[in-house]
């Protein structure tokens, strides 16, 4: 539309004459004045004008121009004719308006009285009647395709007719929420018009709704406002530009400030101080109330005697909030943008600072006045969004997993109303899951900057996906969460892995063992200093229920704090019995801990237990224990060197790996956790049994004298969990043989690193379970036997006592192995319990 179409009278640019008024925020000035008064007329008594005042409509866009007063006026007229009862308040603002620049329009209206003649939205070719009809069609006939598919849609009313009925029954809800997607699906043309000329189309929308309501119940007096939400596309705050002005836009952001609620005078009543006469209510005229200078009563006529009577005035609520961009929309090297949002009536206080919201509204601009007294208008404009609808969006990244808790109540609106965006995402995720190399791809995408450690990453992936928690009828429950411990040399990016996992996991909590106390991790009871009430406060583990609790520097944690973990890691609860509170809190948490070896570097000569001073009872609760060691291996070195050089000189060769970006990965995981609950297939179960038995047997190899336990019942649980997690990764409902095979492999890799008995080279679960390897135990038994022989030989019953050192010398003479004094002491202690000898300090006596 060429701007030459504008008639000077219709344009509402800031002009010297009207500026002082036009700038006050509540002023229905000039062109827009007609609009807001029109809306007011449609909203008699109940809802005051939703249009925010100071509607300086710059004529930058054709749509921005003031609508012809003809449209609203004639509409109003038609409306009032049909429902003469409704407009209770005499609010014909037009009469009150002194002849101004749009007086001409008013004249035009009066001529243009014939209802039959097509009425166009001013400056456009939009026919009011057409839009009216389209809206009516939409409201009456739109049916949710999802409902229709259920087969009961034929007889029912359309989706929005039901909403209208509901509102009328409740008599409370005064707004009709309309999903813009529905409008688009039903009538794309109407959608386009609505977005481009929101003021005009919404006005008609309101009228149509009221029309409908009046037909159903002529006595229904409340005004129902249409609120549009969920536009097809939302704009980035920083991309709002002049061409968006006066259009319907939707922006996402975070509320950072809310103003106090501003009472906005809609009509004022004055009283004469001299005679007490009350004036008629005076309406707001372009943002100000014209205070009568003299009493109108003929008997009085006192000058300057009128005073405002506050409780006879009518106010509307208004509030301004500031919306700030969310971090994901900010380009690198930029600061977040903000935009002001004007809220009216019901919307006031519907958001708090810190909320993430999606606002649908009309983008507007108003001119800046230089000073209150100055008439000069700066050539700049301030912009804001007139809010139509506010929707709180998810706070956490993993909204989806949060829904895990409530997913049975799917009638819940939020779930149903997930936008197309979400559906698209799901499709994309499903597509991804079908890739044959999804497992490797996921592995690669997990902390791509951390180098090597592929098996550790696979384990961590399993932890993210998790197994199925199982609750038997008997009350026994099996956890589905996988606990992982990383032990390793300093500088092997364990902490980075932890940080990364923390970012990925739904309710990840990151703590450091050094700074965590037992109560800080679990829960504690405190007394409120003021009321004296006892309060239960949750610690990290409870807070990360259904998430991953990352504990760095696990080894530095106090004994006491660690012991609290026993319960969490197997029973998945935290029990509190203190100060009158006995509670058991859920802590269905996967624990990801990392620890440094006690001698700062891992000593391969010692067992895991000796390397990290952790009690075996706790250690056995970890499904996977990984040792991350700096291994000298030329192959790895070469890869590392290549990686480093590439890092510095962007070698194209190594840059071709495909990664899944973080948001997608998060969405993928949460979708899998929510929707996929794999079962173990028969073949897989068979395989599991077979392999487990095989594993147990391995320790009992024929010919081997010692009995080594290589697998325990705890391992079989771990294996099942890992298998389930692996199936989840493929979005498969069945745990297949391949999953079982892979979970065995994962477990073995982890075991090989952590549970290998260094003196024999076999996997020995005893190392984890008791801290002593089988070979060590045999060695001790041999020593005890040797000692017994020695004692029998050398000492007589009741005879002289011998010194320990002497015995040690003797033993060392006989034995091929070097024996330490401590070993001798323990061996003798064993003999003492058998009642063979008596130990008195360093002296040994045979009994």
């Amino acid at each position, binding site marked *: 539309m060429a701007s030459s179409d504008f008639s000077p009278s219709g344009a509402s640019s800031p002009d010297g004459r009207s500026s002082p008024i036009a700038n006050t925020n509540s002023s229905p000035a000039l062109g827009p004045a007609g609009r807001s008064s029109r809306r007011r007329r449609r909203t008699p008594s109940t809802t005051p004008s939703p249009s925010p005042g100071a509607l300086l409509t710059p004529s930058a866009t054709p749509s921005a121009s003031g609508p012809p007063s003809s449209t609203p006026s004639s509409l109003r007229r038609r409306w009032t004719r049909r429902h003469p009862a409704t407009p209770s308040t005499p609010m014909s603002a037009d009469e009150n308006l002194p002849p101004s620049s749009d007086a001409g329009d008013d004249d035009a209206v009066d001529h243009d009285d014939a209802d039959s003649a097509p009425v166009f939205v001013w400056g456009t070719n939009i026919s009011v009647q057409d839009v009216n009809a389209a809206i009516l069609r939409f409201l009456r006939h739109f049916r949710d395709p999802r409902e229709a598919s259920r087969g009961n849609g034929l007889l029912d009313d359309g989706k929005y007719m039901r909403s209208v009925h509901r509102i009328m029954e409740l008599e409370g809800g005064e707004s009709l929420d309309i999903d813009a997607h529905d409008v688009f699906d039903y009538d794309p043309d109407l959608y386009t018009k609505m977005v481009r000329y929101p003021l005009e189309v919404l006005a008609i929308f309101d009228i149509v709704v009221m029309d409908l309501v009046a037909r159903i119940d002529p006595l229904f007096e409340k005004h129902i406002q249409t609120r549009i939400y969920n536009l097809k596309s939302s704009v980035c705050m*920083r991309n709002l530009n002049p061409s968006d002005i006066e259009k319907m836009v939707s922006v996402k952001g975070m509320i950072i400030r809310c103003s106090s609620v501003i009472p906005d005078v809609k009509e004022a009543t004055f009283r004469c101080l001299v005679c007490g006469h009350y004036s008629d209510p005076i309406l707001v005229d372009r943002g100000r109330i014209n205070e009568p200078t003299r009493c109108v009563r003929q008997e009085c006529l006192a000058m300057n005697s009128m005073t405002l009577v506050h409780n006879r005035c009518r106010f509307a609520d208004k509030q301004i909030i500031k919306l700030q961009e969310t971090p994901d929309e900010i380009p690198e090297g930029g600061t977040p943008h903000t935009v002001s949002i004007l809220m009216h009536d019901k919307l006031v206080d519907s958001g708090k600072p810190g909320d993430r919201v999606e606002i649908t509204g009309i983008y507007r601009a108003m001119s800046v006045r230089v000073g209150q007294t100055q008439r000069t208008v700066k050539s700049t404009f301030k912009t804001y969004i007139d809010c139509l609808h506010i929707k709180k969006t998810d706070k956490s990244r993993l909204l989806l997993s949060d829904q895990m808790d409530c997913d049975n109540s799917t009638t819940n609106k939020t779930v149903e109303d997930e936008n197309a965006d979400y559906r698209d995402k799901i499709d994309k995720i499903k597509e991804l899951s079908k890739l044959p190399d999804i497992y490797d791809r996921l592995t690669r995408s997990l902390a791509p900057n951390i180098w090597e450690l592929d098996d550790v990453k696979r384990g961590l992936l399993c932890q993210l996906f998790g197994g199925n928690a199982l609750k038997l009828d008997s009350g026994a429950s099996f956890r589905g969460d996988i606990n992982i411990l990383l032990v390793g040399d300093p500088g092997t990016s364990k902490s980075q892995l932890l940080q990364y996992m923390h970012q990925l996991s739904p309710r990840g909590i990151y703590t450091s063992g050094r700074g965590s106390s037992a109560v800080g991790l679990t829960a504690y009871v405190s007394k409120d200093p003021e009321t004296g009430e006892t309060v239960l406060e949750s610690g990290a583990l409870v807070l990360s229920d259904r998430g991953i609790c990352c504990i760095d520097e696990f080894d530095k944690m106090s004994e006491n704090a660690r012991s609290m973990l026993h319960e969490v890691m197997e029973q998945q609860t935290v029990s509190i019995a203190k100060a009158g509170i006995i509670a058991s809190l859920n802590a269905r948490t996967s624990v990801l801990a990392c620890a440094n070896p006690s001698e700062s570097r891992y000593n391969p000569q010692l067992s895991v237990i000796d390397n990290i001073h952790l009690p075996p009872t706790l250690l056995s609760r970890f499904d996977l224990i990984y040792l991350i060691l700096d291994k000298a291996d030329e192959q790895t070195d070469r890869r590392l060197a290549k990686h480093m*050089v590439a890092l510095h000189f962007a070698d194209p060769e190594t840059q071709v790996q495909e990664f899944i970006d973080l948001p997608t990965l998060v969405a993928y995981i949460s979708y899998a956790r929510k929707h996929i609950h794999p079962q173990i297939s028969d073949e897989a179960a068979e395989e599991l049994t077979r392999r487990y038995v095989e594993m147990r047997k391995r320790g009992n190899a024929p010919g081997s004298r010692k009995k080594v336990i290589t697998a325990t019942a705890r391992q079989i649980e771990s294996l099942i969990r890992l298998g389930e997690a692996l199936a989840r990764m493929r979005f498969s409902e069945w745990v297949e043989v391949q999953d079982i095979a892979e979970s065995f492999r994962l477990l073995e890799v982890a075991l090989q690193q952590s549970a290998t008995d260094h003196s024999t080279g076999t996997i020995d679960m005893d190392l984890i379970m008791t801290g002593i390897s089988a070979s060590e135990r045999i060695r001790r038994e041999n020593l005890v036997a040797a000692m017994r022989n020695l004692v029998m030989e050398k000492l007589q019953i009741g005879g002289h006592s011998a010194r320990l050192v002497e015995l040690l010398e003797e033993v060392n003479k006989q034995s091929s192995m070097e024996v330490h004094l401590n070993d001798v002491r323990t061996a003798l202690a064993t003999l003492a319990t058998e009642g063979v000898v008596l130990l008195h300090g360093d002296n040994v006596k045979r009994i």
Partner: protein
Amino acid sequence: MVGLPYDFLTNPLGAVRQTFEKSVASSPTDVDPAAIFRGKDWGAVDLFHDFLFVKGGLAQVPSIDASSMRWLQPNTLVRFRGMVQDMLGNELYVGAFKDGSSWRTNKFSDFCPIQLPPACETQLWERQLFHCVPVPGQNSWVTETKSIPSTQNVSSSASQHEGKRGRGSEDEDMNLNEESDNGDLISSPNAKKQKEHENTCSSSCLSDDLMDHGNDSGLGSGDSNNPTCLVKIYDLPESHLKLNDVFEFIGIYTFDPVLAVHKDDSDDPMFELFEDPTVDLPPSKVPRLHCLICRKLDTQDFLSNSLVFESLSTVVRGIRESLLSHLTAILGNDELAAQYLLLHFLSRVRAQVEVMSVGKLSLNLTGFTKESASIFGHQLTGVIQKLLPFTQDITLTLDYLNTATLQPRRNNKTGRLVAGVLQLAQGTHLTINETCMQSGTLSSNGIENARLLKNLLELQKVEYDFEYYKLEMAADVQLLILSEAKSSILPADLVLPFSPGSVPATNATSEDLQAWRWYLATMRSLPCSIEPEMNLTLQDEMVASMQEDKSLGCAELNRWLTMTELISASFGEKNLSLEHWQMIKELERLRKDRLKEKAR
């Protein structure tokens, strides 16, 4: 070109408007002329470009500083060099309006030239607002090289002021330089301390001011003499300017007394939130600049143009040698430290890969005591100030950590970003003196500050606080730490025990200084590449080293590569060679020996 109806310097708006009207007139009649020029240039900028860069008009354009502020006339062409300190978002303005039958433009000005006729046809355009400050820590020699003589060419209208002011400012400048030169050479700890004090004070005062919603706060950190500037940018993609970028803006200076008295005492609570952040920047203190042309500045742009050296390798090597010997002398004949210092000066962040910052090389010189820090430390900071354009130094004390505002923070009440000490321009050098640190308790602010410093050191990232969330901004800051023993609060890439053999001695002429500045600025920006064969050789070398010394990890290799790049840059070479790698290995060997020696 005699009959130009406008003068680029004194009436730039004339040029803008005339070109606009000409373009409108020549555009086809069937389209809306004003609409097609939205967000576009109609040839005005080209005209200025031609005038400034082809015809050499740039030298005549006065720059905004403390002294020129007093005589600058509104609506004249000015320039401003500064760092983008805050982004204030977009502003809509009446870009074009129809005066009678002809279109006129408001671009590059705050006001309509004439009273807008009532109900006239207007076009809304938008521009971006940036708050720019003199670069924090800018050294005096940087301003000294700016072309002050150009003031003489400024229009007649300004000439009455110009006579006195121009000379005055020159004298002042010269005094300043002399003073700082002397002060630095003879090492005056007092002056130094005072400066530090000022620095910390100004930053903390600043934040206080803003918290109090002070009127004239937010005037930026750093040089309090030079004004900050509100720059309005037209028609540029937003990504063109980034926070903390150093730019030169050439544009139209506007000042309107009507605006100056602004600050309306509105009791309307609406204004509280509609208030724009510029309210805190009164035009009387913060000049407005409507930018016509802007360009990003490199360190090289701050060098005086009089001296251009050829990048011949012999010349470069010569300068390198003289600089090294100078540094060695400053460091009391510690040549190893001088070598490392040189590499440190040349380092810059080349890339941020995931969490790694490639190319940074922070240096921790250990073995300082309070006393030796006062002798060598001040010498060192003095030299750094003279060699590098932007330098800051922090004396780390418990009190400082607990009280200073290091983190830049958005004040959502005013909508302004409050500059913390760590809001630094890319390429700033930061010296942290840890020798005065005592033991004691850190407050939460202190812990946060220590964490920020550590993050800057390790990741070259500074977290900016936007109240409801924090944003990490990439930084490129060279960090030098002087400490007694290896600093654990600030883990640097390199730890080198400092062992001076004599008292510091310096002798540097200004030519030397200029040569060194040129050398550092130029070599630092040299690109570095690697030949495929060298790539393989290097990999072999690295593997061999790793086989030799099992304790080598990612960090060491990364550092060695960085150092190899830097040392090749220090010779002015763009390609890595094995020779450089060997040199680095040798340097590292010497350093390790020294570390072992110290440990003994």
